C-alpha cells in the first residue's frame, strides 16, 4: 500500500487481529498453526500404501508431531510419548488421504475454458481456483484431501493447473503447488469447440509448435542461468516451460484413444522429454500401455472404467474390459484413478478405484489404494510430502469403517497436516 497504509498494521491493530483470529478459530483451519501438541492414532488396520514399501500394517500406531508423521509401527513396538493426544480408531482403518489429479470443481467452474486461442500455456487455473467450495467440502468428507485443479479441454492447451489441499479455508492455506501442471488436451474436445473446426493433424502441429517454442525459451533461460548467453526477454506465455524442463511441474494430458495416447508418449515424453502423465487414457488407450510404461508415463485413469466392443475403437471379442485392468495386463505398473470432477462427483474418487478392481484390476498387492494415494503423489513429484503413511510425510490421514474404496465404508475422520478437518463426531455426516 502507499506510504501511510504501510503502517496500517500498528502493533495495537496486530494484537487485535491475532485476538480476532483466535476467537473465530480460523487458526485451526490453517496449516501454519498446526505446530504444537503431538497426536497418536491407533487402528486395527493401517494402509501404509508405500511405494516401494509395505502396503498394510495391522494393529499399528501413527505418531504425529505438528503437521507431519513422526513414527509408524506396531502398537507393541512404538512407544507413545507423554502428553500425546490419543485417537483410537478401534476397528476402523486408517489410510492416506486420497488425491485426484483431474479436478475442475475446486474452482468457480466459469473459468475453465478460454476459447480465444487454441494454445494458452500462460493461463493459470489459479485465477479461478476455489479450494473449499460446498462441493469440495463433501469431497473432503469422502477422504479426498488433495486435488490437481486444471483448466478444461476446450482448447489444446488450457493453461496451468494448481495443486490444492481441500481441508483448510481459503486459497493460500490449501495451496500445495502453483503451477501444478500444464493442461494439455490433444484431441476429443478441442475440435468441437472452435468455430473454424481445426482437425487433429493441425491441432497436433500447432500444439507441437507451441511446445517447441516453450522448450526453446526454457533452454535459453537455462543457458543464461548457467552464465552462457544473455538474459532472454521475459515471456509469461512460456514461463511454465521453465518449470516443466526443471521437472518442477508436469504435463497433465487429457488423452484418450490409442493414437492420441501414443502421441502423448511419443511427442511430450520422448520428443520433448518433459514429465507427463495420462489423465484419462480411456477407450482403447490401453493399447499404448507398453509404450507409456517404457517411457515412464504414468496412467491416471478415469472416469470411464470399462470398454466394450465398439466399432472404431477396439475388438474386445465381446468382452467388457476394465480399463485399469487392461493397462495392468499390458505391463503398466503405475496406475492411478481420477474423476474429472464434476463429470463424476469428486466424492466418488474411491469408487473409481473400486470399479477398476471390480472390472479386473489385480488388487492382491493392494495397488488400488496406491492408485488413489502414492501413485498420484509420485506422478506430480510430491511423494516426499504425501501419498503414504510414512515417517516425515504430512499427516494427511483418513479413518474409514473398512476397506476405504468400498462404497459402504464411510469416512469417520479426516486429518490434514495433523489436524482434524472433518469428523462425524462433531458434525452430521456429509458423505
Amino acid at each position: 500500500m502507499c506510504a501511510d497504509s504501510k503502517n496500517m498494521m500498528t502493533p495495537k491493530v496486530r494484537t487485535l487481529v491475532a485476538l480476532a483470529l483466535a476467537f473465530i478459530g480460523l487458526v485451526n483451519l490453517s496449516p501454519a498453526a498446526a505446530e504444537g501438541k503431538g497426536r497418536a492414532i491407533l487402528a486395527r488396520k493401517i494402509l501404509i500404501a508405500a511405494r516401494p514399501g509395505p502396503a498394510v500394517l495391522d494393529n499399528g500406531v501413527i505418531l504425529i508431531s505438528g503437521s507431519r508423521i513422526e513414527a509408524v509401527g506396531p502398537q507393541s513396538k512404538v512407544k507413545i510419548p507423554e502428553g500425546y493426544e490419543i485417537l483410537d480408531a478401534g476397528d476402523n482403518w486408517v489410510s492416506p488421504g486420497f488425491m485426484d489429479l483431474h479436478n475442475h470443481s475446486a474452482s468457480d467452474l466459469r473459468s475453465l475454458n478460454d476459447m480465444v486461442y487454441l494454445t494458452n500455456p500462460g493461463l493459470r487455473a489459479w485465477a479461478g481456483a476455489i479450494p473449499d467450495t460446498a462441493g469440495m467440502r463433501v469431497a473432503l468428507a469422502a477422504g479426498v484431501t488433495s486435488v490437481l485443479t486444471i483448466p478444461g479441454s476446450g482448447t489444446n492447451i488450457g493453461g496451468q493447473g494448481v495443486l490444492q489441499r481441500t481441508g483448510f479455508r481459503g486459497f493460500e492455506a490449501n495451496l500445495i503447488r502453483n503451477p501444478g501442471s500444464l493442461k494439455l488436451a490433444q484431441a476429443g474436445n478441442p475440435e468441437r469447440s472452435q468455430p473454424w473446426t481445426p482437425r487433429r493433424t493441425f491441432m497436433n502441429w500447432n500444439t507441437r509448435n507451441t511446445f517447441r517454442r516453450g522448450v526453446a525459451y526454457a533452454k535459453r533461460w537455462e543457458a543464461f542461468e548457467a552464465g552462457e548467453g544473455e538474459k532472454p526477454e521475459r515471456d509469461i506465455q512460456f514461463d511454465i516451460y521453465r518449470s516443466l524442463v526443471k521437472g518442477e511441474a508436469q504435463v497433465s494430458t487429457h488423452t484418450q484413444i490409442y493414437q492420441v495416447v501414443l502421441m502423448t508418449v511419443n511427442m511430450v515424453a520422448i520428443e520433448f522429454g518433459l514429465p507427463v502423465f495420462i489423465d484419462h487414457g480411456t477407450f482403447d488407450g490401453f493399447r499404448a500401455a507398453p509404450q507409456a510404461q517404457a517411457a515412464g508415463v504414468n496412467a491416471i485413469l478415469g472416469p470411464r472404467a470399462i470398454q466394450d466392443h465398439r466399432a472404431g475403437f477396439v475388438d474386445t471379442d465381446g468382452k467388457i474390459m476394465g480399463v485399469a485392468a487392461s493397462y495392468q495386463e499390458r505391463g503398466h505398473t503405475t496406475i492411478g484413478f481420477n474423476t474429472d470432477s464434476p463429470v463424476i462427483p469428486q466424492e466418488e474418487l474411491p469408487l473409481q478405484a473400486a470399479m477398476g478392481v471390480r472390472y479386473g484390476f489385480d488388487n492382491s498387492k493392494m495397488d488400488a489404494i496406491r492408485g488413489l494415494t502414492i501413485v498420484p503423489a509420485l506422478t506430480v513429484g510430491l511423494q516426499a510430502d504425501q501419498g503414504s503413511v510414512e515417517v516425515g510425510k504430512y499427516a494427511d490421514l483418513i479413518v474409514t469403517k473398512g476397506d476405504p474404496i468400498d462404497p459402504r465404508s464411510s469416512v469417520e475422520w479426516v486429518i490434514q497436516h495433523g489436524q482434524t478437518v472433518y469428523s462425524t463426531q462433531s458434525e452430521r455426516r456429509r458423505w
Partner: protein
Amino acid sequence: MVVVATTLLALAASAQDPGTPGGPGLALFAAKALVAELDGRQVVDNALILVKDGQIEAIAARSEIEVPTGYTLRDLGSQWVMPGLVDLHTHVSGSGINDTVFQINSGLRVAPTTVPANRNLKRALAAGVTTVLYIPGSGSNMGGQGILMKTGFPEYERALVRDPGSLKIAQGDNPTRWGYGMGRLLMNFHLRTVIEQGLAYAQAWDEFEAGEGDKPERELRLDIFRELAAHRTQVSTHTQYFQLVMMSILMLARDYDLDVYIDHGSFDSYLNSDIAVENNVAAILGPREVMWPNPPRYRTDGQVHGSAWGFQQAGHPMIGFNTDAPVVPLEELPLQAAMGARYGMDNSAMQAVRGLTIVPATVAGISDRLGSLEAGKDADLVILSGDPADPRTSIEQVYLEGETVYDTARDRRRW
C-alpha cells in the same frame, strides 16, 4: 493608502470569509467532533476547531485551548463536526468513461470527461461527501486512470486532488460480456502481460534517471506504471467474488507489490480477509453489503452474511465503504456504512465513521490532507445533527478548505 486598503479589501472580498486562505481565522464550537484519526483520537466532546487559511489549525476540547484573537466564532450548539466523507468508487463526475474497444486501456484517463460540481456532486456534497475517486467503468479489464477530486468546487484545478487517482482494473464478470469467448483466465493473462510490461518500463525509467541505461522510449500506455511503481497512486479493482479478490490480493498486491485495495468486494470475497490482512490490502465495500443467500460456490446455510462483518471476523482493520455511484446514488454513501453496521459490523469504535473518512483517505494515499480532523489537514468539515451513518441525521453545513460550500441556512436543503 486607505484607497489601497479598501481596494485590497475589495479584492479580498471573497477571501474575507473566515477560515479561507487570506481570510481571518475561524473558530468552531461543536458538541462533538468525530476526529477519526487512523490510530488515535476518535472523538472530542465540546470541541473547539480552529481553521486558518483553509486548513485545520488545531482541534481540542474547549477547555484545553484559547481562541486566538481576530477569529470569527461560530457556536454550532448541539451539532457535531466530522471530516468530509470520501468515496473511492464513483462514476458520476462526468460521462463517457467506458471505452471497450480494447480489453487493456492503461493509458486512458477520465480527467478529460470531468464536469466538476455537477448535479450529482452537488447533491453528494449536501450529504457530506467532499472527496471522490472518479474512475472508468468496468466494461474492460483495465478501464484506465481515475482522478481524486473534491465535490464542491466548480473549477477543475481547485477540485482536483490528484491525477492519476488510481488505475482501474476489473477482473471478472463485466469484461467477459465483452465477447470473443474470453473467460477470466485469459483476462487475467492479459492483465499480467501489461503489468509485467509496465513494471519493466517503470524500472527502465528509474535506471535511466539514476543515470544507468539510456533513455527509454516514452509510452503513454505505460506511464501510469511509473506512478504505481513509485507508490504515488493505487490500483482500484472492481473485484467481487472469492477468486477475483484472491487475485487482487495475491497477484496484484503480493506478487507485483502494487498498492491495491479491494473496491466493492462483495459476495464471498470476505473469505479472503485473512490474506487481505497479511498483505495489507484494504477492503472498500459496497454497494452490495450482504452475501446473497445463494452465493456462487459457498453455502451460508441460509444465513445472511454482511461483507463488512465477514472482513471484521478475520480482524481486518481497514474496512471502508463505496457507492459505485450511480449504481447507488452518491449521497447514500453514509447508508453503506449504516448497512455494514446493520449486518453485523462492530461499530463500537466508530468503524462506520472511519470507513467513510480516514480509511478511504488512507488507502487512497491522501490522508496527509484528508480523512480526519487533524491539524494541518484541509478544513473539509461536515456539520451534522448526529451520527453520520443514521439516515435521520441531517447535514447542516459543509466546509471545503474552510469555505462554506453548503449551508442549509443559506441554500435550500438538497439532501
